[in-house]
């Protein structure tokens, strides 16, 4: 292009007409200056890269750390045998506040505080936090906001913003658009839809998906899944690669436990507790009232509960402690009882001790002297070893001297001459002591072991007690053998007693008690089925038949101690128990009844233990028989067992009250013990 110009026009008075050579030169200078500036900028770019390039590269990479996120998994559900959900995990959100984002502009603060307030967060608390921590970008303002609440909040804000944009609200006056620095972090929280139902069986799971007590603890790893991860990494070419590993949700448990039976049991235990609350002394109706319902022919736990109950949704709510016995330094119960006032002033060291007592599952964790419920075991050991004959007779004068001790019978006046069966029926201690003598220490301790006393049954629940230190060996004193024969001076747990008892009446099959039937994956596929497992053969069918015969007499016999346990319309068997607690002579007892039904073909066993009923005269097994009767009266029809026995008018009225009269089939031929379904 030619730089020479055609001269045209003149520089007239009206102003400049031409872009002169000197101007072109100055324009070139200007261009040169611009070039110079560009050069300086280029050098600056080069220097930044040369001097700080490495550091800045690392800075950029280190800032990417936030890309490393954990994706929470969902802990598995716990369902009863019918699929009723007992424990579930819900998607919840933590509300996170970012002070820095809020403080970007003055107009953000108030609308954001309004928004937080609508989520139920105290605005003054947040205002104070933001003032004190202006640079904070992560503050958990609220935990466990429900999915629904979050959704409603987001919809409200979105609608608000749309409205503001539509109405052209000035920026400074916008309520919704100026909400800044609130975000939500998702997670799961454990939820027990039925509250107290099966609380000690389930246990609970708090933050971090760590199960405490019960199934939640025992099956913690099964229930937990594997957290996912979303992260970025850099490949060789420094390219950012995003990778997401989805979370694997935990597995579900399907129990043998039936929520309906469980709620019947808990209803009756609560009713007992209510009835006897504050009667003899301020406090609960008993220290513990506990019950196990078990399938005799499989070891399936159908229900398991013990008062006091607690709500696993709020396991640390101290209000549940009111009425529990005070604990001494060794965590043993004393005669004092907790009041509301005690709870208000409870020290931080005491709180976990009492809460542990509240959460503990009496049915498997507490060992106690079983008392006369041990008598069928002694007789079974005698019959099985042949040392006790079915036709032998014992004379009971009301006491027996063993070595230098005078040991009294249940009946202080003496039972007179009794057969083996009558000894069980009337719960005669003297006859049992004599039988134990016949059996001998060696055989007796051998059978204690066969019946698994003192050993863990292997039930799939956390914290099962092992009590073998409380069980005597063959070097024991004669008085020890004599008292062990009727269930004193050795300790067992409820689960040990009922598991052994089931084997006595079902033909000698000792089933491992269990509570989980199936493990299923998050999408419902069965991963594992737990079949009933026979651990050992305790007694022969012949012995078993005799024990059934004797224990039916406990309920039906003329001198039977368990008469009051019989539910209207049914034949049952069972054995009462009344055990003195330590120290002897304090007039405190653990009373119990271990029953089964139907009598001829036992299907379910119900064991109720009442630890120190709140009454002046505690040595009365009818506390327990009444509870068993109430439970059986409702559970047997529920399970589909036909009534086989005629009912009296009074009983019929009672059935009507319970709404169970329809299950009484009256004079129809009793097609015995067949389940309806």
């Amino acid at each position, binding site marked *: *292009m*030619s*730089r020479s*110009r*055609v001269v*045209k*026009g003149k*520089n007239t*008075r*009206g*102003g*400049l*007409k*031409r*872009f002169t050579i*000197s*101007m*072109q030169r*100055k*324009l*070139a*200078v*200007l*261009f040169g200056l*611009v*070039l110079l*500036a*560009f050069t*300086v*900028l*280029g050098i*600056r*770019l*080069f220097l*930044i*890269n040369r001097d*700080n*390039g490495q*550091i*800045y*590269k690392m*800075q*950029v*990479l280190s*800032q*990417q750390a936030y890309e490393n996120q954990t994706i929470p998994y969902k802990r598995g559900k716990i369902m009863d045998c019918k699929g009723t959900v007992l424990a579930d995990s819900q998607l919840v959100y933590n509300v996170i506040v970012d002070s*820095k984002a809020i403080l970007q*502009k003055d107009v953000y603060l108030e609308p954001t505080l309004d928004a937080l307030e609508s989520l139920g967060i105290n605005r003054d608390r947040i205002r104070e936090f933001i003032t004190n921590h202006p*640079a904070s970008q992560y503050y958990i303002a609220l935990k466990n906001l429900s999915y629904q609440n979050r959704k409603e909040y987001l919809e409200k804000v979105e609608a608000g913003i749309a409205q503001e944009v539509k109405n*052209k609200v*000035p*920026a*400074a006056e916008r309520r919704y658009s100026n909400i800044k620095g609130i975000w939500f972090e998702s997670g799961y929280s454990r939820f027990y839809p039925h509250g107290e139902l099966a609380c000690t069986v389930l246990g609970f799971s708090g933050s971090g998906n760590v199960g405490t007590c019960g199934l939640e603890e025992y099956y913690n790893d099964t229930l937990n899944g594997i957290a996912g991860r979303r992260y970025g990494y850099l490949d060789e*070419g*420094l*390219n*950012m690669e995003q990778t997401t590993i989805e979370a694997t949700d935990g597995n579900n448990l399907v129990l043998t436990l039936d929520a309906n039976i469980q709620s019947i049991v808990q209803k009756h235990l609560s009713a007992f507790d209510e009835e006897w609350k504050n009667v003899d002394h301020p406090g609960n109706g008993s220290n513990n009232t506990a019950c196990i319902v078990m399938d005799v022919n499989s070891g399936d736990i159908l229900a398991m509960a013990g008062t006091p109950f607690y709500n696993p949704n709020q396991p640390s709510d101290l209000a549940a402690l009111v009425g529990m016995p005070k604990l001494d330094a060794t965590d043993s119960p004393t005669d004092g009882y907790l009041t509301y006032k005690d709870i208000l002033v409870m020290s931080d060291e005491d709180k976990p001790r009492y809460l542990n007592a509240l959460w503990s599952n009496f049915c498997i964790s507490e060992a106690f002297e079983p008392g006369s419920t041990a008598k069928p075991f002694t007789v079974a050991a005698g019959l099985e070893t042949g040392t006790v004959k079915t036709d032998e007779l014992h004379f009971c004068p009301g006491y027996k001297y063993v070595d230098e001790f005078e040991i009294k019978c249940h009946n202080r006046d003496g039972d007179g001459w009794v057969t083996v069966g009558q000894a069980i029926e009337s719960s005669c201690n003297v006859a049992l002591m004599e039988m134990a003598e016949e059996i001998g220490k060696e055989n007796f301790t051998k059978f204690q072991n066969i019946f698994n006393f003192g050993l863990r049954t292997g039930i799939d629940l956390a914290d099962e007690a092992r009590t073998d230190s409380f069980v005597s060996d063959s070097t024991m004193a004669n008085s020890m053998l004599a008292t062990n024969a009727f269930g004193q001076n050795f300790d067992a747990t409820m689960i040990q007693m009922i598991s052994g008892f089931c084997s006595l009446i079902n033909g000698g099959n000792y089933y491992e008690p269990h509570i989980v039937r199936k493990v299923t994956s998050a999408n419902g596929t069965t991963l594992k089925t737990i079949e009933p497992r026979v651990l050992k053969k305790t007694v022969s069918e012949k012995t078993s038949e005799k024990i059934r015969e004797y224990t039916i007499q406990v309920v039906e016999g003329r001198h039977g101690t368990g008469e009051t346990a019989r539910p209207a319309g049914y034949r049952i068997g069972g054995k009462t128990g009344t055990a003195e607690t330590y120290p002897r002579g304090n007039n405190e007892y653990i009373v119990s009844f271990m029953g089964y039904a139907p009598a001829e073909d036992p299907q379910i066993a119900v064991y109720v233990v009442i630890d120190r009923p709140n009454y002046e005269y505690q040595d009365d097994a009818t506390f327990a028989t009444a509870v068993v009767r109430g439970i059986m009266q409702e559970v047997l029809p529920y399970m589909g067992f036909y009534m086989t026995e005629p009912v009296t008018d009074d009983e019929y009225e009672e059935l009507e009250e319970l709404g169970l009269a329809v299950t009484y089939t009256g004079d129809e031929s009793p097609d015995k013990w067949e389940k309806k379904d």
Partner: protein
Amino acid sequence: MVSSIAGFFKRKFGNRRGLLDYSLLFIVLFLLSFGLVMLYSVSSYEAAVEYKGDAAYYLRRQMVFTVFGLILMAGVSLIPYTFWKKVSVLAYLMSVGLIVLVIPFGMEVNGAKRWIRIPGLPMQLQPAEVAKIGVIILSAMIVEKLGRRALATMRGFVFPMIPALIVAVMLWKITDNLSSAIIVVAIVFGMLFVACPDYGKFIAIAAVVAVAGVAIVWYIVNSADTGSMGFRGERVLAWLDPQQYAGGKGYQTIQALYAIGSGGVFGKGLGQSMQKLGFIPEAQNDMIFSIICEELGLFGAISIMLMFVLLLWRFMMIADNADDFYGAMLVVGVISHISVQVILNIAVVTNMIPNTGVTLPFFSYGGSSVFFLLSEIGIVLSVARGMSRNELAKYGE
């Protein structure tokens, strides 16, 4: 439609032949396309986050602005530039009026009231962009009218400066937009530098401005209470030591430096920036050059600067060969405008001057700046038509 408009002007202002300056058009289209590619790369992450996965939100809008801007450019290029001389006072008054309109009708974006909503259109107008072109048109006319002798005097410098200063003060005080005010003054300063025959006063003024700048910085640094000086005082402190203010005013700067420094010679590759993933907020606006450095490296950054040099070189050619002084002055105004904006923008992202919001022509997101930038190119193309006629005349058409 375009041809009928051209026909109208042909009838009105005589039959002006002339050719389109294809070299300039090519450079402009290249920069626009390159700008759109980079805008998409830089903005897609933030757009996807803010507009529910719509990664192309900013790109789509910018493409629409660009298409309309090109139509505007074509239209303006068909208007003989002498038309602007006739309407220069009117254009200036209109741009002043628009700034005043911000007071009642202004719309706040990011805390600054700099935009006017255009009824019926999903976009806003930034009066500052109108003011820049208005000042160029008016100043070119004033300088032409003053004449050579007057330009040699101080009066010849001060007089054309007055309308520019009025607009600058208005932009500063009404729209709180100091950077646009500086640009407006710099444009006229550049035009006068070319028009006035001497150097003395420009060197003197540059020296005074430099000394004043140093004094202000010295005052801010040694002042105990920086809070009373508002955000600009803090920006100066953040400029001097961005690490110290990395949590506040220095955040954007330090993140931009990280982006530039981590790019290396050839960058991380198109689309591979990590700093755009939320670390440099609104990177598609003022800080786009830092992401370009990160993705394309020094090579890409200097290539872009060379494209701007080429553009300015072509402008200079057009000015040198313009039909008359007024046309040349218009082009000089556009040269000043674009070079000042490019220099200030890159100076900000490299932390050579305190952080102030200056967009990078052809690259930064924004409707107003594309429209008026392309209008200015249209004016230059119009001047270039005259040039080509001269060229043809020279060879005896």
